[in-house]
C-alpha cells in the first residue's frame, strides 16, 4: 500500500507543478459561470416568471454553479489509460510489481481531487459574488452531496474506463472518448436541468445512468430529493458501478492479451 501512497503523493505534486495553469483554469471557469448567470438572469427577468418547471432563478443558478464542480471532475478526460495504451506507456507499468488498474484509479483520484479541492476557493468567491442567487443546502444534505460526489467519481471511472479499454482493440479512441464525454454531459443535465425538458424526454433521460453525472447530485444539493429518494439513487449508482466495472474488467483483461506495447 505504501508504494501506492507514494505514487499518489507524487502524482498530486506533479499536478501542482504549474500553478499559473491552475489559476488561469479557475479564472476561465468564473467567466463561463458568469455567462450562464447572464443568460438565465435575462431569461427569468424578461419572461417575468418566477419558476420554470419548479426551478426558481436561484435554483437554476445554483444548479449551474454545482454543474461547474462536475465539469471539473470530467471523468472522460481525467483518465489516462487510453493515452497510455496508444502510446505504449502502459508497458512500463506492466513490468512493475503493482496493479495497473489500481494505479489508474490512483491517478484519476489524484487528478480529480486536485481539480475539485483547488476549485473550492473559486466556489467560495462565486458564492460571495452571487450570494443572492445561490441556495446552500443544510449540513445534512451537504453530507449526502459529498457522498454522492464520491460515488459519481467512481462511476465516472468505471464508465469511461470502458471506452478507454477499447483502445486495446480499435486503436486511438480520444475522439470517441471526447464525443461520449460531450454526449454524456448533454443527456446528464450538464447544460441545463433535465426537468426543463418536455415531460416524455425528461422521463426518458431520468431513467438513464448518465443523470448521476450532473442532474442527480445537483438536485441533492438543491434538496429536491427526499432522504429515501437519495438512498434509492445511491443503491442504483452502486448497481451501475458494479455493472460497468464488470464490463471494464472484462475488456481490460481481454485487451491486455492483445496489447503489443508498441507506441504510436
Amino acid at each position, binding site marked *: 500500500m505504501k508504494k501506492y501512497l507514494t505514487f499518489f503523493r507524487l502524482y498530486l505534486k506533479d499536478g501542482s507543478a504549474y500553478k*499559473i*495553469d491552475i489559476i*488561469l483554469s479557475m479564472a476561465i471557469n468564473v467567466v463561463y459561470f458568469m455567462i450562464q448567470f447572464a*443568460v438565465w438572469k*435575462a431569461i427569468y427577468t424578461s419572461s417575468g416568471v418566477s419558476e420554470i418547471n419548479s426551478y426558481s432563478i436561484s435554483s437554476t443558478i445554483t444548479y449551474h454553479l454545482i454543474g461547474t464542480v462536475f465539469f471539473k471532475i470530467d471523468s472522460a478526460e481525467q483518465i489516462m489509460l487510453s493515452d497510455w495504451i496508444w502510446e505504449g506507456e502502459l508497458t512500463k507499468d506492466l513490468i512493475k510489481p503493482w496493479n495497473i488498474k489500481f494505479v489508474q484509479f490512483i491517478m484519476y483520484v489524484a487528478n480529480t481531487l486536485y481539480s475539485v479541492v483547488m476549485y473550492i476557493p473559486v466556489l467560495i468567491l462565486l458564492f460571495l459574488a452571487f450570494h443572492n442567487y445561490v441556495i446552500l443546502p443544510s449540513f445534512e444534505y451537504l453530507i449526502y452531496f459529498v457522498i454522492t460526489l464520491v460515488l459519481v467519481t467512481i462511476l465516472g471511472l468505471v464508465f469511461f474506463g470502458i471506452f478507454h479499454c477499447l483502445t486495446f482493440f480499435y486503436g486511438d479512441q480520444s475522439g470517441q472518448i471526447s464525443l461520449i464525454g460531450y454526449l454524456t454531459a448533454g443527456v446528464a443535465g450538464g*447544460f*441545463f436541468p433535465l426537468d*426543463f425538458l418536455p415531460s416524455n424526454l425528461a422521463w426518458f433521460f431520468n431513467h438513464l445512468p448518465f443523470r448521476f453525472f450532473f442532474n442527480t447530485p445537483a438536485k441533492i444539493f438543491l434538496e429536491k430529493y427526499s432522504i429515501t429518494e437519495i438512498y434509492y439513487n445511491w443503491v442504483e449508482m452502486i448497481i451501475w458501478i458494479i455493472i460497468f466495472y464488470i464490463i471494464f474488467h472484462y475488456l481490460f483483461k481481454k485487451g491486455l492479451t492483445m496489447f503489443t506495447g508498441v507506441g504510436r
Partner: protein
Amino acid sequence: MIKTIVKYWRVTWVMIKNSYIRDSKITGHTVSKLLAQVVEILIYIVFFGIIFRNVDSLGGWSYHQVLFLYFYSRAIMLLNNMMFKKGFARFAKLMVRKGEYDFYVIKPINPMYLVSINNPQAYIGVSASFYLLAAAYSLIHSQIEIHLVNIIWLILLSVTGYLLYYFLNVICVVPTFWFIRLYTLKDIIYKANHFMRYPIGIFPNALKFAFMVIFPIAVVSYIPAVTIFYPPKIMYIVYMIVITIIFGFIANAFWKFGERHYSSASS
C-alpha cells in the same frame, strides 16, 4: 506583394493537403468528431427551444435570430479552429517548452502565421458547414426580409470577424513565451467565445464594455448578425473594421515582444 501572397498560399495549401491525408486515415476518429457537432446542434436547438417556451425574446432577439447568432458564431469559430486551433495548442503546450519554436523562427515565413497554420484539421471544415446550414435555416425561418446589401455586408464582416478572432487567439497564447508551459492558455478563447453566442444585450454593461472594446470577442459575431437582420449601420461596420486592424497590430507587436523572451529549449 503578389509573390508573398502566393508563397503563403502555397504553404497553407500544403498544410491543408497533409491534414486531409492524415484525417482520411483515421476515419472513425473523424466521423466521431463530426457526429459530436451534429449532436451539439441538436442539444442547442432543444436548449433554445426550452428558453423560448418561457420568453418571447432574449436581449430583444427572437428564437430564430438567437439560433442564427449561435450557429453563425460557432461556424466562425470552427473555421478558425480548422486552420489554427491545433497549431496554437501545440505552441502553448510544447513548442516553447521543448524548443521546437526554433524550427519556425528560421523559416522565411512570418513565424506567428507558420506556428498557427502548422496543424490544420480539414474535417472541421465539414463541421463548420453543418453550422452554416443550421444558421441559413434559422435565417430563412426568422421571417425577416433580408436584402442583398445585408448579405454582402455579412460576407465582408464575416471575413473581418474571422481575422479578429484569429488576432484574439494570438493574443491569448503569446504569454507562453514567458510562462513556458501554460496548457490553459489555449482554452481561454474557447471559454470566452461563449460571449459570441448570445445577444450582447443580455450581459451587464461592464461585461458588454469588456467584450465589445477591451477584448472584443463579442464583436466577431454580433455585428455581422446585426447587419444581416437590420439595416446596416455604418458606425458598427467602421468600428468592426477599425478594431480588427488595431488588434492585428497589437497581436503582431505582442508576438514580436514575446519572442524576445524566447531562449530555445533552455527556456
